[in-house]
């Protein structure tokens, strides 16, 4: 833990969230909170509802019950782009980049919600529109430097190897300067070196930008090293919540991972 980092008050509060698709229950009465500057991990076996949880937080899914409060604003239903506007950004389990665009353009989309000029100004590429493009380009370049992807700036993302695509996706999320960053398995499918790089970036983001992070990850050593607190889900229910050490020694968690029948 870095000395300068101070974990603050809760920034996100999940309260009794339940979600079902047709008859299939994905989440059942899940509650937990995420504090400012905190790295919060969600773990659990496959199908435990981890990704569904992220999708509820940023409004891709609307829960049937329960509320999500972000920065003290409680809500039942929010659309993804509103969530983004409020300061929530995320990456996806299966990379969700815009494949027809370059790395630079992909990251620039992360700043779209901060752009104000009208389409007429943009059509003329004059005055505010041009100024805005350049200002945001400068911001995006900071992110590019931060994640060390200068060499692929103008490459179409479809041509990049998997590991770099993951990094570009993170860059796109960071470009929005989010207060809360949701990372859905950021290290899935990476080799050791790439995982170390990505872990360093995650820590740096948390440390230098003060971003709160919710992280889904299967690699336990990564989870235990990075996170401040861990939520454990199993079959859509929360079965444990606490520091990595507490969770590691929790009977229920061990059972869930070993597949003991309920």
């Amino acid at each position: 833990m870095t000395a300068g980092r101070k974990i603050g008050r809760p920034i996100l509060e999940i309260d009794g969230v339940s979600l079902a698709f047709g008859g299939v229950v994905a989440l059942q009465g899940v509650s937990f909170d995420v504090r400012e500057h905190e790295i919060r991990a969600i773990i659990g076996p496959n199908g435990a509802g981890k990704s569904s949880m992220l999708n509820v937080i940023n409004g891709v899914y609307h829960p049937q019950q329960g509320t999500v409060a972000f920065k003290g604003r409680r809500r039942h239903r929010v659309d993804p782009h509103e969530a983004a506007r409020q300061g929530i950004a995320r990456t996806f389990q299966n990379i969700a980049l815009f494949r027809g665009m370059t790395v630079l353009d992909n990251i620039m989309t992360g700043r779209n919600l901060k752009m104000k000029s009208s389409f007429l100004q943009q059509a003329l590429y004059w005055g505010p529109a041009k100024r805005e493009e350049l200002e945001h380009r400068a911001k995006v370049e900071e992110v590019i430097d931060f994640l060390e992807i200068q060499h692929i700036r103008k490459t179409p993302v479809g041509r990049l190897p998997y590991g770099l695509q993951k990094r570009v996706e993170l860059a796109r999320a960071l470009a929005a300067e989010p207060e809360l960053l949701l990372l859905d398995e950021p290290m899935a499918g990476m080799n050791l070196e790439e995982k170390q790089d990505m872990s360093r970036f995650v820590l740096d983001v948390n440390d230098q930008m003060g971003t709160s992070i919710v992280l889904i990850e299967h690699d336990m050593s990564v989870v235990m090293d990075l996170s401040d607190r861990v939520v454990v889900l199993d079959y859509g229910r929360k079965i444990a919540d606490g520091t990595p050490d507490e969770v590691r020694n929790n009977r229920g968690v061990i059972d869930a991972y070993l597949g003991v029948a309920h």
Partner: protein
Amino acid sequence: MLYREAGQFKTTYAADQQLFPIRQDRIGIAILLAVVFVGVPLAAETPAIAGAIDFNYWFSGVLVPFLIFSLAALGLNILTGYAGQLSLGTAAFMAVGAFAAYNFELRVPGMPTLASFILAGVVAALIGIVFGLPSLRIKGFYLAVATLAAQFFVVWALTKFGWLSNYSSSGVITAQKLVVFGYAVDTPVKRYLLVLAIVSVMALAAKNMVRSSIGRAWMAVRDMDVAAEVVGIPMMKTKLLAFAISSFYCGVAGALYAFAYLGTVEPAGFELDLSFRILFMIIVGGVGSILGSFLGAAFIVLLPIFMDLSAASIERSFGFALPAGLVSNLTLILFGALIIFFLVVEPLGLARLWQIAKEKLRLWPFPH
């Protein structure tokens, strides 16, 4: 090989974001503009050259329709190529533009031609928004069906509501005279210059939009709509804006089609077949490319002309008449085959081929 870029360094983001960052491209485009705006009209005015080439035919029969179709293809490309919403109703929006411009001229005394064109585009944009509304719930060819509805509905409405065509029989309208800033545009070369100017400005505007935040929003929606929403792109605004701007372009193209090309049009002239032709233009030219709209339009406009000329020369040199309909059927087959060919071999069309050639020249003598 031609692209000697070493030493063309940029010291500002503005320089890096400019329209043509490579000096050679800037020179090339300047030459092109000089040729089409000054060179070609001057040549047409030069008796020695004008005697050898039938410029009136070239302007009215080739260049003007090419430019107008380029504009329509540009409109469709904004919607389909950039925003990813397939439309089969392009011709309908052109029809709206043509009839709207006609009515503005007819019913508003002293209406300047250019203003009526812009208003025609706006009307087309509004109609476009209406038919774009279903895109908020449906995608892919379901949406294509919605645009087909637009296609049939608009043509039907223009035929049925006599007021729109000033109660002429079967909806035929004759476009008013073109007067721009008090200056009569009454010769082929003047019409050519007017259309060229409008198309150039609108192409530039389109290029500017697709390289700004609105263009990125369109492409994001096209490439992965869920992710687009998640990064904060409002789906409804983005899609409807694509429909509106696309229809605006098609509307202006339609107005030009009536005013600067045919002079007399009827609703039946804006049938589904025309929509398909414009769709073919962007498939052949390049989906998601401004340049592709022009290349595709050139190809689809020139191909039948080329086929006719070849047939005529075959008939002349061999002295027999080809069966009626042969050329048009061959053209049909060729169009079909080309579409399949491009979709299979080069889904990004001629523009992509041009891009590859350019890449090769930039890397010469290396292959990659």
